[in-house]
């Protein structure tokens, strides 16, 4: 896993929101909005319920009247247009009252083991107000304006398991519907999407009375839920090496299965051509003004055009292992952006072949939180040199190779990235400098004999325990490490964000700087009331 490739990630059919929708559809879940208590100004609360074969979950939404000057997407904000929690079951009146005292406060409040997530969202003011006004006057909003923004509200944080008192992963691990990663968070966001549309329709009805209309379902599908994401996601990718391994291993296994198909069928070929066409259309609609993304979008559009030409004019579909041949060609001819897009496209027509891999994307990290003290230093050294070669050629004393440091700010505990040579705080650095730590371990091991057990090393140098564990894990989990220097001046944090967001299923990645980004979730996917008759794959 190199950062540059991670920064070109595209969502696939193994993405977590796709897994959620497939399961809900397959298990015939039903959805309801049993509570809608919002006043003329849209202030109040609502409850959305998802009923599955064994359990139900309720999104409890609180809608607020937020003064414009308080609206901010930053983690350091203290008030939002709407706040949410996903409740485990059906909330009682007492639960709602308790949640009403806490959920609007977000980080400053407390939730309980009855809740599975905590989140908030702000309106995309221009689009939100425009849509309300149009619907109030009995008109549908312009399609192009919906496409351009892509959402009515964007979440600015979706906190999941264990945060602020919420239920831990352990509460959910025996539930099939929560087995894949981030399913509670995805369900929460999907129901939030329904709330955003209900809210504009409610306000339009209050404003326009009898002449107001609801949003046309065809236009409604263009809207997802936006998300504004900062650096907080990046440390997660480093702190959960075994989990991350499972995500990437599932994707690689899926790709390998497709490439090892000796023949293609006309059905899969047709589906592939259709998703390629849709991807091209999507790439043309994808808007970003950030210079980094503008370059990537150009590469993507050109690469997809090149791919389209090759597929229709040069690709020999009768050859043995045609998908592998196509993949091999892409590695030689296409830019990274288009290569990664192709990886997603190749998986798309092969659901029956690969969808079971979704079950392998979660793991019990507790089991791997250990060190093998009986391993000999020689063996450890071998793993270090074999699996961390990418880290060993760098001189971490050079200013540009240790230019940054990751830290947590006092301000709402926001993870941030500092400039080591010009900002204070490096003495409180977070241990995300894996490459540098590995190099230090390599240097330390020079003083130790091959036959000595690791236990002896750690008795004298307990500070190396974490990195020794990672080196030992690397023998079993080849995708556990981001193979780049994460404190280098050249490192782009948004590349890490994009990779994680793609696993979520995010689209329309739109960087606002090199360290925060806006994306869209569930755009084009069915709403709860459409799921049963929708084509979900």
């Amino acid at each position: 896993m190199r950062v540059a490739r991670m920064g070109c990630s595209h969502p696939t059919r193994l993405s977590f929101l796709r897994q959620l929708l497939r399961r809900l559809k397959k298990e015939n879940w039903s959805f309801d909005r049993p509570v809608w208590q919002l006043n003329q100004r849209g202030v109040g609360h609502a409850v959305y319920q998802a009923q599955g074969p064994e359990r139900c979950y309720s999104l409890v939404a609180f809608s607020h009247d937020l003064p414009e000057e308080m609206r901010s997407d930053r983690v350091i904000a203290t008030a939002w247009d709407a706040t949410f929690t996903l409740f485990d079951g059906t909330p009682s009146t007492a639960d709602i009252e308790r949640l009403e005292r806490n959920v609007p406060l977000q980080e400053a409040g407390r939730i309980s083991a009855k809740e599975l997530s905590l989140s908030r969202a702000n309106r995309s003011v221009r689009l939100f107000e425009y849509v309300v006004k149009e619907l109030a006057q009995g008109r549908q909003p312009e399609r192009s304006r919906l496409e351009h923004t892509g959402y009515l509200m964007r979440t600015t944080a979706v906190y999941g398991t264990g945060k602020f008192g919420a239920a831990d992963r352990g509460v959910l691990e025996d539930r099939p519907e929560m087995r894949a990663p981030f399913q509670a968070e995805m369900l929460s966001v999907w129901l939030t999407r329904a709330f955003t549309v209900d809210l504009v329709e409610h306000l339009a009805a209050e404003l326009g009375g009898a002449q107001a209309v609801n949003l046309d379902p065809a236009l409604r599908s263009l809207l997802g839920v936006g998300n504004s994401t900062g650096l907080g996601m990046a440390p997660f990718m480093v702190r959960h090496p075994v989990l991350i391994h499972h995500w990437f291993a599932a994707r690689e296994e899926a790709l390998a299965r497709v490439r090892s198909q000796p023949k293609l069928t006309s059905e899969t070929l047709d589906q592939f051509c259709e998703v390629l066409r849709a991807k091209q259309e999507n790439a043309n609609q994808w808007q970003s003004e950030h210079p980094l993304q503008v370059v990537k979008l150009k590469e993507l559009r050109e690469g997809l055009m090149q791919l389209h030409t090759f597929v229709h004019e040069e690709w020999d579909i009768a050859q043995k292992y045609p998908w592998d041949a196509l993949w091999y060609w892409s590695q030689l001819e296409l830019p990274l952006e288009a290569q990664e897009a192709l990886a997603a496209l190749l998986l798309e027509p092969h659901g029956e072949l690969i969808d079971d891999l979704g079950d392998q994307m979660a793991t019990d990290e507790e089991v791997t939180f250990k060190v093998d003290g009986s391993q000999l230093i020689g063996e450890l050294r071998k793993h270090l040199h074999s699996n961390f070669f990418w880290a060993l050629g760098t001189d971490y004393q050079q200013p540009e190779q240790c230019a940054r440091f990751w830290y947590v700010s006092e301000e709402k505990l926001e993870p941030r990235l500092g400039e080591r040579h010009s900002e204070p705080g490096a003495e409180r650095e977070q241990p995300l400098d894996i490459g540098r730590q590995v190099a230090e371990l390599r240097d330390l091991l020079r003083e130790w004999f091959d036959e000595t057990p690791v236990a002896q090393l750690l008795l004298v140098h307990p500070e190396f325990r974490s990195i020794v564990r990672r080196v030992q894990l690397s023998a079993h989990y080849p995708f556990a490490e981001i193979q780049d220097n994460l404190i280098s001046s050249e490192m782009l944090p948004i590349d890490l964000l994009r990779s994680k967001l793609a696993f979520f299923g995010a689209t329309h990645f739109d960087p606002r700087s090199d360290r925060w980004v806006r994306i869209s979730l569930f755009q084009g996917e069915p709403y709860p009331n459409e799921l049963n008759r929708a084509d979900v794959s």
Partner: protein
Amino acid sequence: MSPENQQVSEDFYTSGDLWFSQSELQQLVVKVARGSGYCWSDAEEIGWAASWLSKFGLPGEDVVLSLMHSSELIAPTPTPQFWKEGRIPHCPLRCGLALMDFAQLPEGLGTSSLVIESMLGLPCFLAFAARTARQIQHPLKIQWEEQSLFMNEAAQPSVEIDKVSMEFGKIVEVKITRSESDMAYVRTKNSQYCVRVSSQSFEQLEAFAQQTLVPASDLSRLRAGGHDNPTS
């Protein structure tokens, strides 16, 4: 194993105490340990230990605070069957980590048992003994003074853990044995998901954790995310 107190108690919001999830407590304690001067590697382990203790009903956060306030404890010198005391008592963190690391080596549990002389902070050590049992996939019997308990291969303690003294400063000699008892007849303690932390302990924990945070500045705020435009 059926987790207890998954439902929130009625006084959830009326008492001055705070309820934490296990993972939340663990993350807090990692910061506490780091903020008090432990290296990140040790801090991770201490966080895990606090979470384990709390999971089985012991005040993990108080054990950690005692560890933070204790000084002049030493690491063991592992030798077969017996880790002898020096002039200074053994540190439960160092003994616990060494127990795990040497578990499969002659200087550790070897094939039989191990005695550790003169150790403080028994509850802290027990967390690592539990992990050792899981690591070697063999139940362990832990004995001290007139008491004993078992740890099974899933890192669960027997119900006798309820009787463990929380007196951190008490020096004990501990014997760890590969248990041959039939664990089917040993009652294990149920785990719980919520951890109640007193506001007094929380204040102390926060004071240590604060030491890992970098004060905010305009520059750091700008570089963290810069300017957002909520109207777009």
